């Protein structure tokens, strides 16, 4: 029973279809609270699809169909009663390509709070500052909060997107290859950030970079063609994987 509380997200017998394509096959996986879980696997194996299952971003894809149950803190998030906009205030997402709004830095970070109806200027400014600090961007932009977010570098834009997601203080942060468009220095910054963030947040991150997975994550799930092959502590997956497929993948024997 006490063990149960340590899990914030759980997928139970989840099957996902895009039309005829069976993209996720009977996935059972629990995600530990205040940990970083890495989703790895070859291209097209369903990592992004699985990530989007948790904040229901697949719902906008016409051919998408899901079977099974997904729980967040005991609540079935695919229940008809659940409002997706409320759900997503608890589960933030950072996308592969930085996607700041064509608005100022301040407006970007404050957006999630403003749509919740918060108008208190001081409160907003506080949150914006804190979020930018957490995203390790404050020092670079503090004199220029009115500048368009589009005028920043790619790495800075991605950290804006992280700050924007953090500003609403979600419980979970989903990150889909957040560093794939970044240079090594920005990547290092984001990874450092992930390590700090797990104090407060639960993070699920998709990555193609094995070193990154081993550097930032506590647990790793390996997907292959829609199947969850192996899910364990990251060091176990990388030191002595139980399945041959996992072994082959992490040692780079197939792509």
């Amino acid at each position, binding site marked *: 029973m006490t063990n149960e509380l340590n899990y914030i997200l759980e997928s139970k017998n989840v099957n996902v279809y895009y039309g005829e394509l069976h993209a996720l096959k009977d996935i059972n996986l629990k995600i530990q609270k205040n940990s970083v879980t890495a989703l790895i696997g070859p291209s097209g194996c369903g990592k992004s699809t699985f990530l989007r299952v948790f*904040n229901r*971003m697949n719902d*906008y894809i016409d051919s998408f169909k899901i079977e099974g149950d997904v729980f967040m803190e005991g609540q079935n998030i695919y229940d008809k009663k659940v409002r997706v906009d409320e759900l*997503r205030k608890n589960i933030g*997402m950072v996308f592969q390509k930085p996607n700041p709004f*064509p608005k100022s830095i301040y407006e970007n970070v404050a957006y*999630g709070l403003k749509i919740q109806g918060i108008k208190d200027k001081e409160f907003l400014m506080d949150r914006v500052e804190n979020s930018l600090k957490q995203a390790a961007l404050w020092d670079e932009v503090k004199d220029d909060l009115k500048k368009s977010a589009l005028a920043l570098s790619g790495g800075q834009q991605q950290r804006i*997107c992280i700050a*924007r997601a953090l500003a609403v203080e979600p419980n979970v942060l989903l990150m889909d290859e957040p560093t794939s468009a970044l240079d090594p220095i920005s990547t290092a910054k984001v990874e450092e950030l992930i390590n700090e963030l797990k104090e407060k947040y639960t993070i699920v991150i998709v990555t193609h970079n094995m070193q990154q997975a081993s550097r930032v994550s506590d647990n790793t799930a390996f997907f292959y063609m829609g199947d969850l092959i192996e899910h364990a502590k990251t060091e176990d997956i990388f030191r002595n994987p139980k399945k041959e497929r996992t072994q082959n993948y992490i040692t780079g024997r197939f792509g």
Partner: protein
Amino acid sequence: MKKRRLEYFIELILKACAVVTILTTIGIIWVLLSESLTFFKEVSIKDFLTDTEWTPLFAKKHFGILPLISGTLLTTFIAVCVALPLGLVIAIYLSQYAPKRFRKIIKPLLEVLAAVPTVVYGFFALMVVTPFLQNLIPNMAGFNALSAGIVMGIMIIPFVSSLSEDALQAVPKSLKNAAYGLGSTRFQTSFRVMVPAASSGIIVSVILAFSRAIGETMIVAIAAGQQPRLTANPLVPIETITAYIVQVAKGDVPHGTLEYRTIFAAGITLFVFTFILNNISFWIRKKYREQYD
């Protein structure tokens, strides 16, 4: 050998078409300019721009263009007030809410609005809208700016809605995902992210609709009256630049007289307006393209 000669021939025809178009444009501008220059030898530009009466066909002649400009702007303003909110709401609905299949039916239906002959709209304004409005506003005149403007607004709805919809569709999908990902409702996504991101395209659509309304002739000639009047009152007869040009061109004013030349002065005024508007929209579009590249 034969093929090559054919191709040369085709190229020649295409070139000729292009040259004819350019020559026509130059010709039109030249006639407009030279006739207006003759006009402005007799009437000072100052009188033209500041006199508040336009009575070139009366015994006591005044050549102030302001009443015609006010008539034009009044009907245009009413038209844009109708077309902007309706067109924008339609565009948002079609691009953000409507199922694909529904959109495919509605879009061509909307374009029909732009395909109706304007003379039909004119009669519609005069015979249907005006009597209807007179029930609500008893002291409204039979010819007035309001009905003409409203009907013109309906006519230009598809300009606003289809160009605005294109602008909304052109907003990168990643922005929509970002908005939804942060817990925005569909309404918030539409109005806080999509519309602002598409704003330059939407503004362009409105300017083009504006420019179309300024040049519109038939509806205002039929339903707005032929009484040049410097007023902002939409309930009384007025005259627009275009309606005046029609009045003189189809009337019995002898060619070559000062009275006749007034239509070129009026025409060049109209040309200046639409030219400026088109340039503004061109400039915005250019800027906007740079933003997304």
